[in-house]
């Protein structure tokens, strides 16, 4: 068994005075696809941000993970003034500058290659969403932390994304994503229901 | 004593108004800064005490 990509033991997350989640333990190994499930406000996003170490002040307990992480939040860090190609070329998350070929294959995989050089602001909401997902089709880090990746996706988009998850997991990566709906990823999917870890 | 009479101490050669005003303002500020936390701590302690007694009485009825 290779070393786990992420190991959280007794992780607790506060929100001001309120204890949001307490004693969450999770081990993510290579090839795992984890869904953080639970109703709105249970703290899915907060836990994911804790895993990403974007939230630290109000996070207690032990968290160890590999440094090679892709995080995608609610807003997708896309600049309207830039074209999809420019957005992917100089993405602030520091993915070492992908080659043009890699960008083309990624944009084609999500079906927006035709608009690669149009200002992202002029694309439709659905197309923008797809450009955001194109990052997952670039050569990317092993551990993915995705916040509500399936929102505002049409059926075809959901299928493409689910296939990509499984492909990434099989190639030795791991995916941790939040979603309040149940994802149709078959038995490979592991679900962590955060309702059991509610604070106080 | 630098001043030979109480009146001289008050007027201080014409500057008394300023000197005593400065001391008055400073002592008011100091008093407020001391009294405020003491009162608020005491009132919080009272609420905790009352809350504790109410719970005590509640447990006695229940048992």
């Amino acid at each position, binding site marked *: 068994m290779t070393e786990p990509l992420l190991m959280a033991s007794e992780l607790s997350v506060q929100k001001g005075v309120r204890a949001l989640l307490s004693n969450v333990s999770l081990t993510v190994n290579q090839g795992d696809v984890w869904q953080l499930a639970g109703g709105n406000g249970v703290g899915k996003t907060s836990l994911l941000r804790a895993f990403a170490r974007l939230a630290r002040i109000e996070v207690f307990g032990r968290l160890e993970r590999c440094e090679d992480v892709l995080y995608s939040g609610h807003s997708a860090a896309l600049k309207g003034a830039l074209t999809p190609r420019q957005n992917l070329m100089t993405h602030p998350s520091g993915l070492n500058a992908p080659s043009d070929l890699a960008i083309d294959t990624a944009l084609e995989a999500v079906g927006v290659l035709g608009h690669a050089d149009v200002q992202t602001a002029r694309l439709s909401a659905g197309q923008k969403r797809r450009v955001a997902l194109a990052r997952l089709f670039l050569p990317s880090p092993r551990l993915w932390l995705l916040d509500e990746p399936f929102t505002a996706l049409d059926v075809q988009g959901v299928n493409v994304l689910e296939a990509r998850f499984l492909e990434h997991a099989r190639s030795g990566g791991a995916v941790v994503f939040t979603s309040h709906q149940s994802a149709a990823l078959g038995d490979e999917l592991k679900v962590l229901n955060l309702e059991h870890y509610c604070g106080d | *004593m*630098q001043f030979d009479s109480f009146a001289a*101490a008050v007027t201080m050669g014409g*500057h008394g108004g300023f000197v005593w005003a*400065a*001391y008055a303002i*400073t002592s008011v500020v100091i008093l407020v800064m001391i009294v405020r936390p003491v009162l608020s*701590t005491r009132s919080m302690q009272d609420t*905790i005490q009352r809350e504790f007694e109410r719970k005590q009485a509640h447990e006695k009825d229940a048992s």
Partner: protein
Amino acid sequence: MWRIIHQFGSPPWVYRFCDRVIPWLLPLTAVALIVGSAWGLLFAPTDYKQGDSYRIIYIHVPAAVVSLAGYYIMAFAGLVSLVWRIKLADLAMRAAAPIGAAFTAVALITGAIWGKPTWGAWWVWDARVTSMLILFFLYVGVIALFEAYDNKTIAARACAILSLVGTVNIPIIYKSVDWWYSLHQPASIKFTGSSAIDASMLYPLLGMIVAFYALFALLMMLNLKQSLTSEYAQSNWLIKRITT
């Protein structure tokens, strides 16, 4: 060393420490302030140049000294809470900010009152007074930043960073204001760089400075006890301590 930090870091221990120290520190500070003021007001000799208006120095200078020290104490508490994430240091920083601001305000007010009889103007653009005014705005900035955040745990960390940035800038500000003042100095008004102050005037001043430091410590403990009581109202160590 770690045992001490651990002790200072545990709220129950600090609460007991405050309960033990305040009962004798409060009267002691009151006496020190009263005796010091009486000594400065009534027994110190009259200044041959300024007459008796200089007696305001016995509250103006101590307030100024403590307000500057207060900022560094606040920043140090911020640093401790930033590095070791000790809740106590966080509360100490929050307690030091309003106290420091109040002392700076007192220093500014008494400075203005002192300026009127001595130079005929309520506000003199002297280097020391101007720097104190800027220090006051540094305090107000920290307090305003703390109030701007809803989540107070995160607010405290932001204030810790701001106060550290402030400490780096204070010497620069003081030096540049002196530099600015020395360039535009109209007459030879030397405000607080007074000539060698006579011993009989100096001792009450030193006494008052010590009294003001004691006052600062007392106010810190009172505010700390207040925020501990409100912060830990539900925890049973506090309930046990109050109800026994």
